[in-house]
């Protein structure tokens, strides 16, 4: 977001001042997330994709009310431009506020993640003035939940092979096709769509990006039940969906750089301590070991030590990434670290819990780890699989030869890099 923040105040609050402001807002509203609170209340380890049906809708309503208050207090979009509802401060300010938020038991706002970290940044970077004004305040106030309409049954890691088409019509564009793995599409008001406007042989050069009203006629959202049992992502069928040309982002056939912005935003997402994927996993592991008495086992002590070590390292890497040039691909580094960390935490919980990881004995904070066990495989696929992240590092950081790609006929070989995309 750094590069696209147009209004940044130079005389704003210091980091300590913004932290104090956040504390002043939070303290009267929500309890502190203190160690003593482990053992009571919800024991969720995962931050996303836990509820379905009415429980999920209730969670979303709570999140919306909370987000409205946060927005009203000027604490929602710390590093966003003032003219679109942001606070106009720096990424460092944002991270500081998020660190403060982590100290409180605030409602789960994961349903806004796609809007805040993926679609919002794309609109800010590539949208028209009208699009920014129309959507950004709502996205940050919690009125608009967003989804991506990127992956297709035949276009996963190889996103540039997508086939959903957008054809010119009198009143704009007519979209036909099928999207899949669209997180939050069943709740979303706004979708960021990539559609084929050129020749499929042109691959990434024949793709255009649009903002789609998810309530438009012809859109059919079908939740997919996942291994967690939740319905967090969806199939989306688009059948003669009319999209006005004013909803186009960027140039016709110029959607690929916009997709790249979307994917680069993962840097913020994966590096952000407030990303909501996990709820304080290491502190919970320590508490778990203490409650079962496993904390006196030297093997468990070493596993706990490594858990804390991993958590600090990924945080420090995120901190360092703020000053890193884009070509360092810190987003890919952070994603690989985070997914490996998640698997490590599961291994530690497994060691401590044994059969209680598989069978719910009703003890607080035990069977909750099965959420992480069942949810973790998604994160090695989502947002670009581990293998894609490794290709990005190998090719763009280390300068190793690129993997073979299908040739693009009758055009010079492109120098634009393909960044395929898995589910969001």
């Amino acid at each position, binding site marked *: 977001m750094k590069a696209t923040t147009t209004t940044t105040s130079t005389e704003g609050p210091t980091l300590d001042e913004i932290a104090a402001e956040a504390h002043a807002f939070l303290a009267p509203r929500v309890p502190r997330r*203190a*160690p003593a609170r482990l053992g009571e209340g919800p024991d969720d380890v995962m931050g996303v994709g836990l509820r379905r049906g009415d429980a999920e809708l209730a969670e979303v309503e709570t999140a919306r009310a909370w987000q409205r208050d946060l927005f009203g207090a000027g604490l929602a979009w710390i590093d966003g431009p003032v003219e679109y509802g942001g606070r106009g401060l720096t990424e460092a300010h944002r991270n500081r506020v998020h660190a403060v938020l982590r100290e409180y038991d605030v409602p789960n706002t994961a349903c806004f993640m796609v809007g805040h970290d993926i679609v919002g940044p794309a609109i800010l970077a590539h949208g028209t003035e009208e699009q920014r004004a129309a959507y950004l305040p709502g996205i940050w106030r919690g009125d608009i939940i967003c989804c991506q309409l990127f992956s297709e049954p035949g276009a996963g890691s190889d996103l540039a092979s997508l086939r959903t088409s957008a054809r010119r019509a009198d009143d704009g564009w007519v979209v036909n096709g099928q999207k899949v793995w669209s997180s939050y599409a069943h709740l979303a008001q706004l979708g960021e769509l990539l559609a084929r406007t050129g020749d499929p042989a042109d691959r990434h050069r024949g793709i255009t990006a649009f903002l789609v009203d998810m309530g438009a006629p012809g859109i059919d959202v079908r939740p997919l039940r996942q291994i967690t049992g939740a319905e967090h992502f969806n199939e989306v069928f688009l059948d003669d969906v009319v999209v006005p040309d004013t909803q186009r982002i960027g140039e016709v056939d110029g959607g690929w750089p916009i997709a790249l912005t979307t994917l680069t935003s993962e840097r913020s997402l994966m590096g952000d301590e407030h990303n909501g994927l996990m709820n304080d996993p290491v*502190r919970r592991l*320590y*508490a778990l070991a*203490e409650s079962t008495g496993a*904390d006196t086992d*030297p093997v468990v*002590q*070493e596993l*706990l*030590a*490594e858990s*804390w*070590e991993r958590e*600090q*390292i*990924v945080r*420090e*890497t995120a*901190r*360092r990434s703020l*000053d890193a040039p884009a070509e360092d691909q*810190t987003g890919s*580094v952070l994603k*690989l*670290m985070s997914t490996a960390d998640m698997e490590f935490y599961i291994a530690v919980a497994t060691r401590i819990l044994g059969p209680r990881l598989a069978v719910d004995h009703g003890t607080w904070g035990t069977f909750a780890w099965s959420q992480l066990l069942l949810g973790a495989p998604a994160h090695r696929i989502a947002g670009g699989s581990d*293998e894609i*992240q*490794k*290709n990005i*590092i*190998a*090719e763009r*950081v*280390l*300068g*190793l*030869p690129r*993997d073979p790609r299908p040739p693009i006929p009758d055009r010079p070989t492109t120098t634009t890099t393909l960044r395929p995309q898995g589910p969001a």
Partner: protein
Amino acid sequence: MISAEELRALRDATRRLVRAWTPQSADDHEAAASAPPDRRTWAGMARRLGLQGVRVPEELGGTGLELEAELVVHEEMGGALHGGPFLPVVGQAVPALLTLAGDERARTMLAEIAAGTSVVVPADARWYEPDAALPVLSDGADGPTVSGVVPGVMAGAAADGWLVPADAGGRTALAWVPAGTAGAATEPMTTIDLTRGFATLRLQDAAAVVLARDGEAERARDAMETGAALALAAECVGIAAEALDLTVAYVKVREQFGQVIGAFQGVKHQLADLYVTLESARSALAFAARSVGESPPLRDAALAVARRRCGAAAFKIANEAIHLHGGIGFTWEHRVHLYYRRAKTNQVLLDTGGGQARTIAANVAALYAG
């Protein structure tokens, strides 16, 4: 605060100088090890770039820069596999002497170190052998003397004298024993690391100057240990980065099956994993360096993170570097094995017997207990 720009300039200048003045091959390192200590390089590093004085205050002839700058220099020393006494002098002795900065003798030693005219090396086995017995300090008729054996003194044979933590009747003292003192002798030790010498220091009723006692001596000793850990961890980052660079360069030119091996995904992904490993070591070091002023549980846990992660990362990368070089990597002529040797040596010095994991576990439990 030193700027990113200044740090980069310091790194580049150090890199150019240290690489030019460090032996490259195993044969050259072996030759250097049996030759007299290289005082021209030592003096040149001080004269050209003031490297020894990176932390020494300006009024004593140093540049008085922050820890971050010192660690950049250690990284470059590690990347070049420099084997002189830089680490024990700058990483250990200087921080210890800085805790005694009111002491005129300590100030003189710091000034001589900064000028490149003195090699002051600590003789303390605690940072890798926590239970090792200290030499004994006795007050004889002609003044204090020390007796005892200190193994594993880094660059011990190249020193102008040793800073020796000693046991003075159950209390700690920090003694200074100049080289050439009757009753003080070093013996070289056989090591896997061909690039750096270790010696056993034998002291038999050797006349000593007591620089500090009790709390003051303990503080100096703690500064030695912390300084050594940070410096070795920084070296590991440099070793890891250089071993990875060497390997990436190699897989871009080595051809098999009609293409460079770096085009195979099996190789690319392995190297990408190693890059993530390197970044994790960089983060661990940055975290520890940033935490030196924090509360003791956080500071100690953070340092232990760097001790574990940087050593492990350097060895992992050096090991894979040999593997990805294939047979040539297993030859005496190719220098990649020198990284493997240095990395393992640093790793075991940084974390002995899993002790650092225990340090983390205990301190984090204290942090969480609040």
